[in-house]
């Protein structure tokens, strides 16, 4: 199915809850609010002509200080973060992207862990790098940086060369009960 047809189906079903759409080179995306996330993605999964049964990736974007250069895509956004959910259908072999507009770090996004298990670590990465919290996540802690790290490095206001050393010995990791959820 063409991605523009998928956008039309979503707009027909959700109407005003689609904040904006994006189309470039055959790839399309819609932007929604965090409250609608579970409903939109389960609609994409359950609809017989769409059948998006694989969540391929969850990635975050920080739009602090973005835009204003005059180009069309560079419009200034009212929200700071976006989380992009890349969907794929094994049966119908089509892809789609759903973007969630997160106003700032105080907004909590529902976790998709119960629907797609792969979202577990991907949401931990978004939390580690951007500081966006996910409600209902079983084990929301840092995954890529060490446990003593302070801050969220992929935000635009983190000084990229600031280094934080881990100076503690790591023997406690052998005896701590690790929750591998």
């Amino acid at each position, binding site marked *: 199915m063409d991605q523009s047809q998928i956008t039309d189906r979503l707009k027909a079903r959700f109407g005003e809850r689609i904040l904006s759409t994006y189309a470039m080179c055959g790839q399309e995306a819609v932007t929604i609010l965090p409250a609608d996330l579970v409903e939109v993605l389960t609609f994409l999964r359950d609809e017989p002509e769409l059948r998006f049964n694989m969540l391929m990736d969850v990635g975050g974007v920080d739009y602090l200080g973005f835009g204003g250069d005059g180009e069309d895509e560079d419009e200034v956004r009212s929200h700071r973060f976006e989380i992009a959910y890349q969907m794929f259908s094994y049966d119908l072999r089509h892809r789609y992207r759903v973007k969630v507009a997160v106003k700032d770090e105080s907004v909590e996004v529902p976790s998709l862990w119960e629907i797609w298990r792969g979202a577990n670590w991907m949401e931990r990465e978004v939390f580690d790098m951007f500081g966006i919290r996910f409600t209902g996540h079983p084990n929301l802690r840092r995954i890529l940086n060490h446990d003593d790290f302070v801050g969220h*490095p992929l935000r635009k206001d983190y000084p*990229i*060369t*600031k280094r934080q*050393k*881990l*100076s*503690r010995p790591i023997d406690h990791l052998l005896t701590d009960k690790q929750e591998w959820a």
Partner: protein
Amino acid sequence: MGLESQLDNPFLTTTIDTVVNWGRKYSMWPLPFGTACCAVEFMGVVGPKYDISRFGAELVRFSPRQADLLLVMGTVTQKMAPILKQIYDQMPQPKWVVSMGACASSGGFYDNYSVVQGIDEIIPVDIYVAGCPPTPENVIGAVYKLQQKISQEKVAAWR
């Protein structure tokens, strides 16, 4: 070794130095601490074309307790740094460290929040190998230079 502490005769000690260093430099047992692309380059070095076993460093041991040459190959992140220190501490003396590639020597082109800018912030390094990744001849050259360095060591210094 406690033998040389009981011998006052310097002639005998220099002969012991020569023999012991000859044994150590021509039979180094590397521990490949490979984290990134340089490890794959090392796999090429131990392959048949650029054979490192010509120089004696053939027997790679993956346990630090059984190795004496620590080859750090690849990017070391801040999360990995205490693990590298622990591996180095677990090696018995005499031990040498070769920092292979740009990432291990200086952080490479990762000047950011997560990469250790050179493993000499954590462990003492004997030989640095430049390159991204270094050519296999470079790696063999590093082993050769390390052998020259070992041949000038004093056995008593390792106490």
